[in-house]
């Protein structure tokens, strides 16, 4: 990373209402700049293309006339619970349904947040990288989901971020904050979708799972074909909290999803699933970090990649077990199905174990379709192409089948089948 030249900084960061966070982001960016492929965590990502698109991008128009409720339904679905819709990073109340009063839940955007007493747990002092710094500096709004201690929410909370580009490439910087109070239960769906056209979405999500809370987080990136997506989700887990997270990537041209999970208290667990499907010339990168900084926590990563055509997919999974902790249970698996000789899958496990009492497993596979299985299906009368489609769907099934609610699962399955021409 190198410092960002002042002229470029001015172009990337339009004048916005100054907040301490925006200022910190701007300062950080001025000092450290955006990442390059020389940075370990960005080695698989065509970061020059992303920076180039950002430099050329106009700030996204806040005009949202194209985005009606039915457009949101079509792009991201209706999953029964309250829905917050942001267009180009800005709250769109007309397409949202904040759900009236749900006991123990507060939903809103920056305006509403300003009216609330600041929550100390929401503070992050430094951005993790230049893109997050840029998100802070240039972001214009925030989606906030605040769950009171002990609240048990039955219906999923749906946050939809829509990229609505104009003629030229537009850049937007959506930010989402979720605070799940101690002992609460919440199911969050984050959809990143878009209207056709070139866009750069630089998203940052922060989730704090309080002690004893149960958090489900499904993140779906299904943006338009010309979209560029850089996303970072940081989840901090309190003692005895339970996280079920899924990251699905089907859309975009270049998309990268980083997931950073940290255990701040003992006896917490995280199940982290991922599915990515680069086709055509798509590029999908996953960067997962699980920081076992507290004892007796369990994490399981299951990431599945299906790469076809000229698609490129990558998974980098970092498990860090800190010195002085005990009783860590950490598992990681990355399975890749490569369907064309021109497609590429990269997998990079990185286990950094600095403690003794650890149970840790990891496995990575990169393989082709199973010829024996295909022959078996064909020998039963199932035509070649149908047999292939069944096996490809079967490869993704363990991830898709675990998605809740059924409306989202069906949607992901449909996006999967559509992408696969099925």
């Amino acid at each position, binding site marked *: 990373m190198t410092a960002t030249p002042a002229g470029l900084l001015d172009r990337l960061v339009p004048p916005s209402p100054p907040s301490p966070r925006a200022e910190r982001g701007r300062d950080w960016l001025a000092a450290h700049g955006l990442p390059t492929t020389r940075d370990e965590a960005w080695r698989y990502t065509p970061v020059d293309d992303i920076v180039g698109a950002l430099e050329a991008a106009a700030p996204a128009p806040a005009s949202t006339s194209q985005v009606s409720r039915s457009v949101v339904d079509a792009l991201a679905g209706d999953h029964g619970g309250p829905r917050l819709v942001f267009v180009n990073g800005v709250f769109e109340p007309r397409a949202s349904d904040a759900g009236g009063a749900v006991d123990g839940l507060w939903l809103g955007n920056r305006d509403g947040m300003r009216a609330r007493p600041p929550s100390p747990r929401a503070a992050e002092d430094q951005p993790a990288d230049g893109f997050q710094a840029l998100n802070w500096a240039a972001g214009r709004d925030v989606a906030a989901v605040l769950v009171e201690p002990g609240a048990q929410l039955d219906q999923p909370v749906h946050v939809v971020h829509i990229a609505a580009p104009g003629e030229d490439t537009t850049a937007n910087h959506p930010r989402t904050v979720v605070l799940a109070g101690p002992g609460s239960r919440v199911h969050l769906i984050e959809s990143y979708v878009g209207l056709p056209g070139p866009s750069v979405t630089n998203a940052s999500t922060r989730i704090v799972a309080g002690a004893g809370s149960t958090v489900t987080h499904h993140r779906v990136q299904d943006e338009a074909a010309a979209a560029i997506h850089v996303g970072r989700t940081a989840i901090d887990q309190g003692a005895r909290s339970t996280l079920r997270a899924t990251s699905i990537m089907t859309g975009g041209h270049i998309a990268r999803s980083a997931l950073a999970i940290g255990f701040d208290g003992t006896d917490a667990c995280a199940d982290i699933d991922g599915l990515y499907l680069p086709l055509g010339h798509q590029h999908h990168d996953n960067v997962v970090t699980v920081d076992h900084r507290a004892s007796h926590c369990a994490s399981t990563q299951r990431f599945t990649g299906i790469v076809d055509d000229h698609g490129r997919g990558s998974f980098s999974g970092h498990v860090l077990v800190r010195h002085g902790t005990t009783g860590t249970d950490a598992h990681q698996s990355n399975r890749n199905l490569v369907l064309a000789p021109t497609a590429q899958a990269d997998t990079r496990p990185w286990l950094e174990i600095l403690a003794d009492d650890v149970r840790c497993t990891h496995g990575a596979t990169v393989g082709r379709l199973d010829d024996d299985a295909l022959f078996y299906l*064909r*020998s*039963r*009368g*199932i*035509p070649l192409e149908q047999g292939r489609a069944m096996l490809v769907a079967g*490869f993704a*099934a363990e991830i898709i089948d675990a998605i809740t609610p059924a409306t989202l699962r069906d949607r992901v399955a449909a996006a999967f089948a559509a992408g696969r021409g099925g």
Partner: protein
Amino acid sequence: MLHIERLTASVGDKTILDGLDLDIAAGEIHAVMGPNGAGKSTLSNVLAGRDGYTTTGTVTFEGGDLLALTPEERAAKGLFLAFQHPVEIPGVGNMYFLHTALNAIRLVRGQPEIGAVDFLALAKEHMARLDMDPAFLSRSVNEGFSGGEKKRNEILQLSLLEPRLAILDETDSGLDIDALRVVGEGVERLRHPERSMLIITHHPRLLEFVRPDRVHVLQAGRIVRTGDHHLARELEAVGYGAAAAR
């Protein structure tokens, strides 16, 4: 029904089937026995259409050139292979698989599709006869099935798909005594004047439930001896070497 003439099959420069002749008429049940490595599974694979083999000779099935067809075309035409080693397919539900296979074959045969509800009833009926728990429908194809459970799942497919020619490649091995009877009786029930079977086995037990019209000894890639059902017992008594020499 099936007419095989001077069939050879090789992989690379290894010749596995070496001039094999075999004729099976409609309604007949033939058994093929032979030592390990003789080429029995290779014969099944070549008949079912697995690629990777170079073949010469002719195979005529129902009057047409079998070797010119894709595996799925052979299945639609009525050929069925119960695999010696059924494949596990994680993520593909057994019920979905069976239903898809049946409808694919019915489509080619010009029969109407069977809907999910009717199919479930049909599958359960067949499973009951095979003493199979319907729970196997909701699992992935063969995944985690025991050896015997996989074999039963093969017979379930056989009975659902109603082929004209069924090849059973060691379907009896790995079955316990009771399962052997269930499978043997299941196969016997499928005997039909229009259906032929080729049963590959190492054990005469199965042939007590399904009495074959002919028993062949396959050795080093060709049929070296043919007899009636008494041959199976003789083989067990004297071994392949001595039996082939007679």
